[in-house]
């Protein structure tokens, strides 16, 4: 996911991150420039906490739904919950593939990114093959 943040910034004029994710991210990494951290309102926060997943996942879902924006999230369990909430949700690999198919990145960069997914073992080989065969 973190490897795709730079690409998100290239594709979208604004990329929002809920505070819980921002806080978590900044523990381990330097927060990339250009990401906008959003703090949930009290009512949103209460709803987020009631979802029962990780704080970052909870907040991201509520924020995406209320802002009517697509959400990039890799966890399969969390994706299902997000869809039930009416959120348009995608995994990192789907996003990178879509960025390539819509001409935001060239083949060479795309292949490097797919290699990275494959090497990390964080995507099912079937999805990696599916993504690798993409064309513009």
């Amino acid at each position: 996911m973190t490897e795709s943040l730079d690409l998100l910034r290239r594709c979208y004029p604004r990329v929002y991150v809920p505070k819980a994710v921002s806080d978590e991210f900044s523990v381990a990494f330097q927060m990339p420039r250009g990401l906008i951290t959003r703090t949930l309102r009290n009512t949103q926060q209460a709803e987020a906490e009631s979802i029962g997943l990780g704080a970052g996942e909870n907040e991201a879902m509520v924020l995406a739904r209320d802002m009517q924006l697509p959400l990039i999230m890799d966890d399969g369990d969390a994706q299902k919950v997000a869809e039930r909430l009416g959120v348009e949700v995608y995994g990192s690999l789907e996003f990178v593939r879509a960025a390539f198919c819509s001409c935001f990145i060239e083949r060479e960069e795309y292949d490097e990114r797919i290699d990275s997914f494959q090497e990390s073992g964080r995507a099912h080989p079937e999805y990696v093959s599916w993504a690798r065969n993409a064309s513009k």
Partner: protein
Amino acid sequence: MSTSTLQFLHLPSHLDEEDTVGWEEEADWRMKRFEHLHGHQESWILAPLNPFEERRETEVMSVSLSFALSRYKAGLVSLGRAAEIAGLPYDKMMDELQKHGISLRIGPSSVEEAERRGERLIAALKQLRRSS
């Protein structure tokens, strides 16, 4: 030694009550190990109130991580929740799951679903590219 005492002893305070279900056996094993390493259990009860020795802090981390791994493996928590339980960033939790041979449940659930969702996203990004 009651189960509730064990849970109190071994689980970090930020865990929800729901998270402790099914933890008794593991906690019991951990308790015995802690007692072997650190002596009588009362000393362990007081440990979180005092500055930890480095070794004990490591042990606490390992208990949290072990619990998070088992909950995730059983399909009871999401990746984000597992990371919270372990006290690790999301990406580091993924590393730990992989290191322990636990399969990541990364969406989507099928290539067909990925294809369907992917087409929708491609259309949206093409639209964005045209308008920028």
